[in-house]
Structure formats: C-alpha cells, structure tokens
C-alpha cells in the first residue's frame, strides 16, 4: 500500500512506516510560539527546572498578536516572551522592528522547509504545508513539552485529497479556492485529517496563493494542508534555506479517506458571510452589503503579492468616504518592498492607512476594532461572532481584490465594478 506525503514525512521522522490512526511520539524540526500562547507554555516549561530548551536554534518566538504592545497587560506578556528568549538564548526571537506576522515571517526567513515537521502554538501553523511540510497547530502545554524534549505526540492522520482542475477565472486566487472548498466541506469537513491540495491549478499557483490555501486548512478542521513541493517551491526555498531539506511525494496508490474534485473555471471570487468561514457565496450572489471597514493583511493575505493586487485595484481611486481601509504588510521585508514598489504611495493616495506588521485586528486585538453594528470586509481567516470587536459586529472574508474593490464602493463589490 502506498503512502501519502503526510504519512511519509511522519514515517521519515520516526525511522519506520506509520499508518493512519497510530499514535506516535515524534521529533520536530521547528517549534513556534507567539506572545499569546508562549507565556502559558513558559509557566509549564519552567516547572521542569531545565537549564536549556531542546535546541535553541529550533525554537522560534515571535511577538506579533498584541505587538507592538497594545496596552500594559500586552506589554507584560511580550516582556515574558522577551525575557524567556534572552534567558534561554533563543536564536530565532524576532523583536518588533525585525518581526512580522509569524506565518509570513518563518517561510520568508527560510526557517521552515519541505519535509519538515513543524509545530506551532498557533492554529494557523498549517500555513507551512504549502512548502510540502507537515505543519500543525498545537497548544501551549504541547509547546512547553516540545521546548523541553523536542518531541510531540500525534495521531497519524488520514488524508483527504482535493484536486483543482481547469484554470481560474480573473480575480480568482488561492483565497477563493480555499473559501469555496471550506464552503463545500464545512468547518469540520476535514477534522483531524491531512488535507492535500493538488491538480493543475495548484501547480500553476505562486507560493503566496499556496500559503493562503494551506493557512486556512484549519478552518475546515484540518490537521494540515499539504501541497507537494515542486519547481515553484524550490525556487522560493533555495535562496532562503540554511539547512538541507527533502521533498516527499504521495504514491499513486496512496490511500485517501475522501477525494474531492473542483472545476476551477466555474469558481467565482468568494465571500464568506458571518459567522462561519464555510458560509460562502460567489460574488455575483452577495447582494448589497454596506461596509464600514476593510482589512487587507494577516497571515492569510498580507504578502507582497496580495498588496500588489490591492494596489492594482486602488491605484488612482479613493476609499469610500464612509469606509476605513487598513492595510497591514505582514513582515518588515514586505513593508519595505511595498514602499520600493510604490504600493504604499498608492494606498496613502487612496486614503487607506498602512500599519506596521501585527495580527492586531484579525483577532479583535487592536489596530482596527469594530463597534456595535459595524461590518468589515477582511482578507483574514475567521469571521466568528465578535472576532474583530463588538459581539454585534460582522466580518466578511474575501480576497485582497474583493476587499480593495469593496472599500472603494462602500459595499461588497467585485474589482470588475471599479476597473
């Protein structure tokens, strides 16, 4: 019986074949924590009284959620993270000014590579599946145990295959494909399973769209969202990698729990309505939804390619007088590149505001919180009740193209309406 990529990566790290349903304790290549989840992990880690973490080069700590410090309590949390990093001499601690949103930053810095097992105390750790890695979110106590031992317990997941055929319509990208997929299978449609994205459309997608798709695997309950590494991946990884990596491919006779096929030529740009990412509609069926705010950014869609698309739509236009558009480049490098390419000028001319990298508004932290009754169009990943602020506010999820066009029109709109 053949094996899937997920089974092969876990098997390679175990030094033997593994099968779905089996519980294993396995070594990880990278362990990630942020300013929300790591303080809890530190409390648990310190109880063990160890003098060092398992490998100071393989623990990555990023203050990005409530950073730059949003208030005194957030400042205390970030301080705990900073002092821990100093005490244990953590190589990859990214201070404000050098940081970015973790799931954009780690691939950019070449810290996560094909064939790796990566765990992170953040649910969107599944993003790195786009590199052909086994990457999954875990909790704080898990992180504490991994920082101590380098090992984690997993159930080897079953895999579900998603095949994307045909070619994409104009303005359709990774965000639309993954929203459409979650709309089809539901928010627990892939619970505990490894999602594997493949097909001719995936092969033609740039890394940015692949990261967006893998990022939202968790919104279908997926343990990971894996895309087999190919030429595009190698081109991205080669200038960044500082250690060797290995590419795994699923066997043709590998066993899948389910297989879904999509004809992408029939998929329109998607919008997920409140209050679930699975509550999707094609843009043509959205109707008249007035918005108060737009967010373009986050670990889902804050990469340079996303900003380029937003700039393409916003160039020479103005944000609707009753809308606030907040654009958040995901890392310092992306921010700087956006300045060099003239994108930031386009945004400011359009009367958008541009923020330093932060998760901020995505989880209702800071930098764009919604008041009662307000509606936002956002390129983020969750639209749960109260996610971006007041429990009676609403979040609509979409691509950067839709978000930019909507902010110009003052209602959810297609770029076709403004260009």
């Amino acid at each position, binding site marked *: 019986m053949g094996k899937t990529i997920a089974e092969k990566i876990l098997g390679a790290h175990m030094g033997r074949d593994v099968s779905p349903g089996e*519980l294993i304790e396995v070594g990880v290549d990278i362990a990630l924590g942020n300013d*929300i*989840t790591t*303080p*809890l992990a530190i*409390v*648990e880690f310190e*109880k*063990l009284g160890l003098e060092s973490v398992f490998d100071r080069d393989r623990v990555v700590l990023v203050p990005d*959620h*409530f950073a730059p410090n949003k*208030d005194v*309590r*957030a400042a*205390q*949390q970030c301080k705990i993270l900073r002092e821990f990093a100093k005490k244990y001499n953590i190589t990859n601690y990214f201070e404000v000014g050098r940081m970015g949103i973790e799931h954009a930053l780690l691939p950019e810095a070449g810290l996560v590579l094909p064939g790796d097992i990566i765990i*992170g*105390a*953040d*649910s969107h*750790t599944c993003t790195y599946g786009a590199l052909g890695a086994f990457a999954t*979110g*875990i*909790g*704080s*106590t*898990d992180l*504490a*145990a991994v920082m*101590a*031992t380098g090992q984690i*317990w997993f159930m080897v997941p079953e895999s579900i295959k998603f095949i994307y055929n045909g070619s994409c319509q104009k303005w359709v990208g990774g965000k639309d494909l993954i929203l459409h997929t979650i709309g089809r299978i539901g*928010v*627990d449609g892939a*619970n*505990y399973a490894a999602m594997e994205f493949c097909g001719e459309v995936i092969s033609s997608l740039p890394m940015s769209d692949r990261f967006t798709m893998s990022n939202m695997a*968790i919104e279908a*309950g997926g*343990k990971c969202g894996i895309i087999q590494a190919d030429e595009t991946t190698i081109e991205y990884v080669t200038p960044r990698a500082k250690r060797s990596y290995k590419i795994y491919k699923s066997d043709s006779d590998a066993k899948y729990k389910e297989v879904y096929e999509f004809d992408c030529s029939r998929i329109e740009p998607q919008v997920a309505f409140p209050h*679930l990412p699975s509550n999707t509609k094609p843009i043509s069926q959205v109707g008249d939804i007035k918005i108060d705010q737009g967010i373009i950014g986050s670990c889902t869609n804050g990469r340079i390619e996303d900003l380029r698309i937003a700039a393409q739509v916003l160039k020479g236009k103005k944000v609707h007088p009753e809308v606030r558009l907040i654009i958040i480049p995901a890392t310092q490098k992306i921010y700087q590149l956006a300045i060099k390419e003239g994108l930031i000028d386009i945004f400011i001319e359009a009367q958008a505001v541009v923020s330093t990298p932060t998760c901020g508004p995505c*989880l*209702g*932290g800071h930098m764009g919180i919604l008041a009662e009754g307000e509606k936002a169009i956002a390129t983020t990943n*969750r639209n*749960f*009740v*109260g*996610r971006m602020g007041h*429990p009676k506010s609403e979040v609509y999820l979409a691509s950067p193209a839709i978000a930019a066009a909507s902010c110009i029109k003052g209602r959810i709109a297609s770029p076709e309406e403004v260009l």
Partner: protein
Amino acid sequence: MVIKGKIHMFGDNVNTDDIIPAVYLDTTNPVELAKHCMVGIDSTFPDKVASGEIMVANKNFGCGSSREHAPIAIKACGIACVIASSFARIFYRNAINIGLPIIVCPEAVEETKDEDVLEVDTTCGRIKNITTGKIYATAPFPEFMQRLISAGGLMEYVREKQDMAADVN
C-alpha cells in the same frame, strides 16, 4: 472519577472566540480567564456555572484558534467534564494535556435535554442520564492517552520520562 451534576447545553461549532474572546488573552491566570468563560455566546455563563457541573455540546466543539486559555477557562470555572458529539482537534489535545476530562458521545448529546442531570464516569467513559435512566458507553481512550491522563497531564508525563531517563543514566 465519577461526576454527577447539572448540565449546560451548547450547539454546533462552539469556537474558541466564543469560549474566551481574544480581548481576555492578556493573562495566563486561570481564575481571571474563568470570569470570562463562554461570554462570546452567553455573557451570563460565568455567573450561573457552579463547580462540578457538566458541559454538553454538539459537533466540532472548540474549533478555531489554538488558545489553551479555552479549556483552562472551562476547567477553572468549575466544569468537571465536557461531552460533545465531536471536538476540534487542537481543543481535544489541549484538554487532554491540561487534564480537563472530555468525552465524545453523539448519542448522549442527542438525547440529553436542558434540565437533565448526568452522571459521568470519566475513567471508563460511561455516561448515565439520571433523568431518563439511559446509560451510554463510550470507547476508552487509546492506551497512550490513558498513560498521559493517569500521569496527570502532559507535563507530568514528560517529568516521569525525564526521571526514568535520569535513572538509566
């Protein structure tokens, strides 16, 4: 451990923003987190929950973020056990790791009503609905997880392994 208590019912897809909204994630203190437990969907919950009570929910309980603050808040506000039709995976492992008893039993969830009283044996996973008299048996945890649970949680399990390694050395 056998728990007998009043229940609190919830629906499908209760997410971690419902359980503990992000605005309260600026602390690791369980007592403080408990004050805001479930306020994303029921602002009165922290006032009406009492120690030893049981939470019952439909499918995909705990979906969303990886915040361990969610099971910690539930445990700290007195909930002794969560029974659901299914759990989202990160919540599931977080609950096991911190020692919050959880049980998957769609049949019991389907047949339980708001005012029912349940008795739960968390060790063998047996649920008895005292009101209706019906008994539900659930699959025991896999052996590896039983070791984690009997050690008292993941960190105690790690400590035991370290002690064993030290003895060998």
